[in-house]
């Protein structure tokens, strides 16, 4: 091989190596998932774990695909998604305003601080009977369950974000003779956005947990209920198919949120490449 043949592909090799380095974490993550699925597949196929109780992941995927195609659970999926979406919208808007209120009223914050800290020690699901009495036998008790589970996370993160705004930025806003609304919109909101975004991310996760958990334990409709129904009827194919669909859906939402969050943080902490 002559010298030119050795030197010409060097830039390409370098760029591949650079891309590999940059995406190493993502590659390792994918590898971990693939290996985990492969181990579960083997464990089930070779009967290391009971293949009746735990069907192989390939069969789960097949079942999920069939469930998606035949549309038997479409109404339940729509019900769950719309309930969770309503809980998320309510929790993020109310939580943001509540966080803003606590920031503006330090005395109120001092009063509520211990209550907020112990909020997640309360098992929210025990409130379901009370919510039925308040809202009736419809989807609203579940939406409220999702809302109650998520709203404090949103409020606390909003408050954290607002409290961490450097004073000099607020002084700059005053120097630029900005009004209160402009100050909130152009300074406070973008300055606290990473924290607010974490609040939104947690609200989405908590709303889904509460709505699906509520359906699983307490409701007669929805995605969670259908998983519980399949479980009670020993219909493992359907149960795992539904569980896989749910995992893929929630996992995808989380990955999108994580990517958006990373993008948001990256601008604020990244350094000049060496």
């Amino acid at each position, binding site marked *: 091989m002559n010298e030119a043949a050795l030197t010409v592909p060097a830039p390409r090799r370098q760029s591949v190596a650079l891309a590999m380095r940059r995406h190493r974490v993502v590659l390792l993550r994918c590898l971990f998932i693939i290996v985990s699925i492969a181990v579960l597949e083997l464990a089930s196929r070779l009967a290391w774990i009971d293949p009746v109780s735990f069907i192989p992941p390939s069969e789960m995927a097949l079942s999920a695909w069939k469930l998606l195609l035949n549309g038997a659970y479409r109404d339940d999926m729509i019900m769950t998604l719309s309930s969770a979406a309503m809980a998320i919208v309510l929790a993020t808007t109310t939580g943001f305003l509540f966080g803003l209120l606590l920031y503006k009223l330090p005395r109120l914050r001092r009063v509520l601080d211990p209550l907020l800290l112990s909020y997640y020690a309360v098992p929210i699901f025990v409130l379901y009977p009370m919510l039925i009495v308040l809202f009736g036998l419809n989807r609203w008790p579940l939406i409220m369950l999702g809302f109650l589970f998520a709203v404090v996370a949103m409020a606390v993160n909003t408050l954290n974000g607002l409290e961490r705004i450097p004073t*000099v930025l607020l*002084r700059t806003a*005053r*120097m630029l003779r900005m009004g209160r609304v402009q100050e909130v919109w152009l*300074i406070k909101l973008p*300055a606290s956005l990473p924290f607010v975004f974490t609040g939104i991310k947690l609200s989405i996760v908590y709303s889904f947990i509460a709505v699906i958990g509520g359906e699983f334990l307490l409701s007669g409709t929805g995605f969670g209920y259908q998983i519980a129904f399949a479980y009670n009827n020993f219909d493992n194919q359907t149960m795992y198919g539904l569980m896989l669909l749910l995992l893929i859906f929630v996992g995808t939402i989380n990955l999108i949120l994580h990517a958006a969050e990373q993008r948001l943080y990256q601008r604020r902490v*990244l350094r*000049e490449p060496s």
Partner: protein
Amino acid sequence: MAFMEQSLSETGVAACASAHVSVMGATKVFDMPDGAPPVNALGPVTFDLRRGEFFSVVGPSGCGKSTLLDLVAGLSSPTEGHIHFEGAEVRGQVPEGVAVVFQEDASFPWLNVFDNAAFGARRNGLPENEIRARVDHALAFMGLAGFARSYPAQLSGGMRQRVCIARAMVLRPRLMLLDEPFGALDQQTRLLMGEEMLKLWRETGSTVMLITHSIDEAVLLSDRIGTMSARPGTFIDIVETGWSRERGSETAMDPRYGALQSQIWGMLRNESLKALGLRV
């Protein structure tokens, strides 16, 4: 040298009309929480800023220099006394034509350098082509032309401070208030930034009031230097440097430079000891 400390008098009120900024008998007392006695942070202080001059304030830590700047900027109100900018009273609101550069990094991390510099001008509703021209000029002036699309996190501390100065420059202020803007920078960067400030001052013709801990910086940059006492800060003396407008680093070679340094330090030494709680 001219001793400028004045009592609030008829002459002071008359001077207010001709001065660019006039501070008359300003004091600032801070109330403390939980029944602690109030803190008398400043004054009474009386002085004028002449239109287009470079005025520096030096004093021991905690003497109220930044409090004085806040009062002049309109970022807080005096407990007693009056402050006038271009003949109109300043009271708790920043007047149009005033820009402040703070010691801390005040660049907005979510905006790139161009948008940071353009922020104030956009708020003032200037046309976009005018903003672009002003920002391009300010960034080139501050040596940031190649960084317009960079974010503050990608810049060094000195560059971020220059972004803040560019943002102030784009506003074309008639009064520029600098609150130890180079305090967090290393000595070399400080010197270079000082030269940039002189260039900026010459180009814009703004009146500049600089708060600084550094006697060297004050002597090198200023037309006049106000030396403050320990808290509650009042002016011990206001010294004329007598430098030409075209001064720069070479001014440090002038024999008067060392004499001025000694004179200022002579006034500040006892005050600094007092501020530290040591015996004079």
